[in-house]
């Protein structure tokens, strides 16, 4: 077990290293020169040279790569041309805002998805099952930003009870902060929820056919205990894997949702950086998204092996 986790962690470190290298290489061979975007056509020969020197662009490739890796290991993420600041100083508050959004959405889709999935598995073919099925089909078929825009129209324009855009830190005003969170969290969860429901439902249908469930009924356990204790635990294995795979979708969805609600997180920063050709910032953000995905999949694998020790043995 510990050996399995060690192997996975080592694999993850190697993966991260390769990801860092790929991101570096992509950014090297891009069309366009960041110095030209910075000077916006007012450049003189001397200025270009000076800036190239300042951003280490005049050095050979392996030297730039060495500087990039060394910087990352020291927590020095580079310099944002657009913001004229060290990236680490803008990065942290943005990162917290995005984590807040993503973790709450994940939490909400699990909390809603598991009971809905169980209900539709237990009453297969019933009205509730059909309704959940239709809702999850619509959820899968709608882009996340459409949810965002429609929720804004309903709750901000017609009912006028929630703020349209922005974020308030939870330390400033808890009530206001929650009000700002509701709509973005809901629109991201609506995109993820169908996958949770569908998976819990199909896993549950398989598990309920098992002998030990029949034994449970025979010895007179309550339905609640059978569904939520005995059957749920076994059907969660597959659901956790699905969450790991769909975490990438959640990250993608968060970028657009942040844009719709003007949430000051990594997504809005990413799009701003792309619009202003801020290469160093783009490099860092792509890296962060890839690493978050890798890390979540590592966590999923470890949880997986704890729930089902057979996986670690293979």
């Amino acid at each position: 077990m510990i050996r399995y986790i060690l192997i996975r962690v080592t694999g993850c470190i190697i993966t991260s290293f390769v990801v860092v290298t790929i991101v570096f290489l992509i950014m090297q061979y891009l069309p366009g020169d960041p110095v030209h975007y910075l000077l916006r056509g007012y450049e003189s020969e001397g200025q270009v040279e000076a800036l190239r020197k300042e951003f280490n662009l005049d050095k050979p490739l392996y030297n730039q790569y060495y500087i990039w890796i060394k910087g990352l290991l020291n927590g020095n993420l580079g310099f944002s041309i657009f913001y004229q600041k060290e990236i680490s100083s803008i990065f942290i508050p943005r990162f917290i805002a995005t984590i807040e959004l993503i973790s709450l959405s994940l939490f909400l889709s699990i909390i809603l998805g598991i009971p809905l999935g169980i209900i539709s598995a237990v009453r297969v073919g019933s009205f509730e099952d059909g309704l959940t099925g239709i809702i999850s089909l619509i959820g899968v078929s709608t882009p996340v930003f459409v949810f965002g825009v429609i929720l804004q129209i309903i709750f901000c324009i017609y009912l006028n009870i929630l703020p349209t855009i922005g974020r308030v830190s939870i330390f400033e005003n808890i009530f206001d902060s929650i009000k700002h969170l509701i709509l973005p969290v809901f629109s991201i969860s609506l995109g993820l929820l169908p996958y949770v429901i569908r998976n819990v439902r199909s896993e549950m249908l398989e598990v309920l056919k098992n002998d030990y469930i029949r034994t449970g009924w025979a010895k007179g356990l309550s339905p609640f205990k059978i569904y939520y204790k005995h059957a749920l635990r076994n059907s969660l294995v597959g659901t956790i894997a699905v969450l790991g795979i769909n975490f990438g979708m959640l990250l993608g969805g968060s970028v657009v949702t942040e844009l719709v609600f003007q949430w000051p997180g990594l997504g809005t920063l990413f799009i701003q950086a792309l619009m202003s050709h801020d290469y160093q910032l783009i490099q860092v953000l792509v890296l962060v998204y890839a690493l978050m995905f890798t890390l979540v999949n590592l966590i999923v694998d470890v949880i997986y092996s704890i729930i089902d020790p057979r996986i670690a043995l293979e």
Partner: protein
Amino acid sequence: MNNNFLNNLQKGFLKRKLSLIGLLIFSIFIFLGIFGPLLIPYDPYKTEYSNRYQLPNNNNIFGTDWAGRDVFSRVLVGAGITLKISIMALCIGSIIGGIIGILIGYMKNNILKMLVIQFNDILLTFPFLVLAILITALLGSNLNNAIIAIGISRIPRYVRIFCLVVNSEKNKKYIISATSLGASKIRILFYHILPNILPIFLVNTVLFFALTIIAEATLSFIGIGAQPPMPSWGLMIRQASENMLVYPFGVIPPSIAILLVVLSANLMADGLREFMDPKLR
């Protein structure tokens, strides 16, 4: 195999009403995508500011937008754009990704194969939408680049799926017996393996079609896909959402158009999956 295929198709796909509805909506979409420009009542690009923000009425079935353009005509022309985008992105993503995946999966186990698979797994750690946004913005914000970006971003997933499928298929007994009968490698690939993975290819292509439409709408919504005044559905939602205080209805027609087309693809994929895997029935 062919008979079996049709038989399964009938049992699993055609008997399910939902899949049939999906097929119906999808056919209508294809029809409108091709013949839409001939059916439109007004010029989708003609602005008429005196006639803007009209709710649906007899002249404009879906109303008019912020520039007084007829939304119905724009949605119809948008269907053509969406169709074109999805076919092109599918060609890039599924054909390149599928071929690489099948070849890698069919290769003998050696270090090269392992390295390619490992590298591909690493590429999969970049979230699809983040990758698509990145590639589009870097190539330059327009529709063609968005199509290329969506196609490229989907390649690693295809490579992975087909590598796994072909790998498990080639160790099955019927392939081993074909080999022992002296069938050549090329014959085995084309006559035995490809027909058997066709259903999986179909399901993935249909699902990817749905994903492409969502991705294109998202890129256009962000502002790096289709550029105004093109009537792309994602761009229409963006422009309507900018005017949502004055005319919130504008968001509805393009959203429903996207919903219906993606829904039809998902319904068809469900039906196809069910006919592939009889256990689900």
